C-alpha cells in the first residue's frame, strides 16, 4: 500500500498528441484519393515508400539517441511527415526520391534538432525543398492527368516506372509525360510561368489544354479535396482557424491586386488558390504547430506572410510553385513573430 504523489492539476483533458497527428493523417485521405483518381497510383506508392523509410529512419535515430523508441515511433508525427512528403512528390518520380526525402526529413530536419517538438522547420517541406534543389529534373517531371495521357498507366506500370524508369512496355518517363498533343507536361503553374516568359498573356495561357477551365485539370479537384480535409480538421478543432484563413486571405489580396493592375501578366486568385500545393499548404503544412507561430496574433501574421511569400515567389521566383519555400521562410521567422506577438499578460500594461 502506498500513496501517490503527483503535482496538480490531477485531472486532465483526455487528448493526446498522437491522436491529433492521427486525425491530421485521416484528413489527408480525400486528397490522396483524388490524387489517385486523377494521377494514378504514383503518389500512393510514394506515400507508402516514404512511410516505411520514415519509420525505419525514426527507429534508427531514436535507437542511436537512446530514446524510448516505441513511444515516439508511433506518435504519428513521422507518418504524417511521410504522408505529406509523399503527396507533394511528382507521381512518377523514381523511388529513391521519396526515400532520400524522408530520410532527410526525419533524420536531419527532425531528429537532429531534437525530435518531435523541437524542429524549427516543417520536416516534410524541408525534405521537399531539399529534393527540389538537389534533383530538379526528377522533381519537376510532372505527369499529365490520366485523361490526357497518351499511354494508359495502371498500378503495375506505375510501380515499374517508379522503380525502373520504364513501363512494362518500355515507355520512359519522358514519353509518358508527353501528352496527346505532343507537348511535354508541366503543371499549370509551370505552364503559365513559361508562357509569360514567352510573352503570352494569361488569357492565352488559359487556353492550354492542361489548364482546362481556368484551373488545371485534376489540380482543382485535388485542392478542393484538401480543402475538405482541412474543413474536417477545423471542425474537429485539430488546427487553428486563423492560419489557413489569413494565408488564403493574404494570397487572395496579393493576387487580386496584381490581377487588377495587370490582368494579362497575372493569374486570377482562383487560379492561385486551386493550383499547386495551396490548400495542402494552408491546412496541413502551415498549421503544423511545431514549426509555426503560437499566439493567435502570431498565427495571423504567420499565415499572411506565407500567403504574401507564395505570391511573390510564384510571380518572381525561380520555381513555379512556392508553398514549400514560403513555409520554410515563415518557419524561420516564426520565433521572431512569436517574440513580437506575445500577449499582454493580465495585469501588465
Amino acid at each position: 500500500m502506498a500513496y501517490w504523489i503527483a503535482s496538480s492539476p490531477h485531472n486532465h483533458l483526455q487528448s493526446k498528441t498522437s491522436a491529433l497527428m492521427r486525425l491530421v493523417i485521416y484528413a489527408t485521405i480525400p486528397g490522396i484519393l483524388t490524387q489517385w483518381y486523377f494521377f494514378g497510383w504514383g503518389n500512393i506508392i510514394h506515400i507508402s515508400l516514404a512511410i516505411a523509410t520514415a519509420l525505419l529512419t525514426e527507429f534508427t535515430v531514436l535507437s542511436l539517441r537512446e530514446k524510448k523508441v516505441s513511444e515516439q515511433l508511433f506518435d504519428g508525427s513521422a507518418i504524417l511527415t511521410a504522408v505529406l512528403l509523399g503527396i507533394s512528390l511528382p507521381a512518377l518520380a523514381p523511388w529513391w526520391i521519396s526515400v532520400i526525402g524522408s530520410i532527410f526529413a526525419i533524420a536531419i530536419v527532425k531528429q537532429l534538432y531534437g525530435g518531435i517538438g523541437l524542429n524549427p522547420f516543417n520536416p516534410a517541406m524541408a525534405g521537399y525543398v531539399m529534393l527540389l534543389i538537389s534533383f530538379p529534373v526528377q522533381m519537376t517531371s510532372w505527369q499529365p492527368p490520366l485523361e490526357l495521357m497518351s499511354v494508359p498507366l495502371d498500378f503495375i506500370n506505375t510501380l515499374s516506372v517508379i522503380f525502373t524508369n520504364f513501363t512494362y512496355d518500355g515507355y520512359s518517363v519522358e514519353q509518358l509525360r508527353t501528352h496527346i498533343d505532343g507537348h511535354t507536361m508541366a503543371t499549370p503553374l509551370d505552364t503559365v510561368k513559361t508562357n509569360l516568359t514567352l510573352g503570352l498573356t494569361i488569357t492565352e495561357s488559359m487556353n492550354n489544354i492542361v489548364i482546362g477551365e481556368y484551373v488545371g485539370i485534376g489540380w482543382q479537384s485535388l485542392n478542393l479535396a484538401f480543402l475538405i480535409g482541412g474543413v474536417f480538421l477545423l471542425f474537429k478543432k485539430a488546427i487553428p482557424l486563423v492560419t489557413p484563413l489569413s494565408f488564403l486571405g493574404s494570397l487572395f489580396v496579393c493576387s487580386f491586386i496584381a490581377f487588377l493592375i495587370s490582368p494579362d501578366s497575372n493569374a486570377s486568385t482562383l487560379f492561385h488558390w486551386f493550383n499547386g500545393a495551396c490548400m495542402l499548404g494552408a491546412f496541413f503544412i502551415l498549421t503544423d504547430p511545431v514549426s509555426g507561430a503560437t499566439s493567435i496574433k502570431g498565427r495571423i501574421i504567420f499565415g499572411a506572410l506565407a500567403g504574401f511569400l507564395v505570391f511573390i515567389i510564384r510571380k518572381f521566383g525561380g520555381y513555379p510553385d512556392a508553398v514549400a519555400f514560403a513555409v520554410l521562410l515563415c518557419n524561420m521567422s516564426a520565433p521572431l513573430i512569436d517574440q513580437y506577438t506575445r500577449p499582454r499578460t493580465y495585469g501588465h500594461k
Partner: protein
Amino acid sequence: MSIIIAILVIGVIGLFFGALLGFASIKFKVEGDPLAEQLDALLPQTQCGQCGYPGCKPYAEAVANGEAINKCAPGGDDTIKKIADLMGVEVQPLDGNHETDNTPKVAFIIEEDCIGCTKCIQACPVDAIIGATKQMHTVIIDECTGCDLCVAPCPVDCIEMRPINQTTRNWQWDLNSIPVVQLDATSQEKEV
C-alpha cells in the same frame, strides 16, 4: 611612380590612424577591470578559497585574466554556466579536484567542546563567528557562507558543517523527496 604614391598614401594613412589610436587609448582609458566586477557579482561570495585564490574577488580577477572558469566549487555548475555565458566561452565541468557536493551548509560549533581559542574567529572570512578568548564561540547562521574555513583551524574539532534544514519556506518542489509513509509494514519499496 604609382607605386611610390601608393606607398606614400598608405604611410600617411598609417600615420594618421596610429595617432588617432594613440590618442584614443589615452582618452578612453578604462580604470579597473569591469569584467572582474561582473564576474565577482556572479560568484557566491563564500570566500572559501577553494579556487586557490584568497576570496571571490581575486578569483574573479584571475578569471578575467584567463584563469579556468571551473574552479568555484560552492557555486557549482550554475555559476560555471553563468561565467561561461559572460565570458563567451564553453561550459566546462567543475574542476575534478573539487568536491561536487555543494548543498548549502552552515558551520555549527559543538559548544561543550569549544575551548575558546578564537582560531575559527580569525579564520572566518565574513566575521560570522562571535566569541572571545576562553569564551564559547557561536556561529551567526544568517551570516555564515558555509565556506568551512573554520573547520580546519579548530584544535578540538568542534566545528561541523551541517546542511541547512529544509522547511516549507525553502522547499524546492521536489516531489520525489517527499517521504511516503508505508502503512503496511510488509509492503515493498516506497512508491512515489
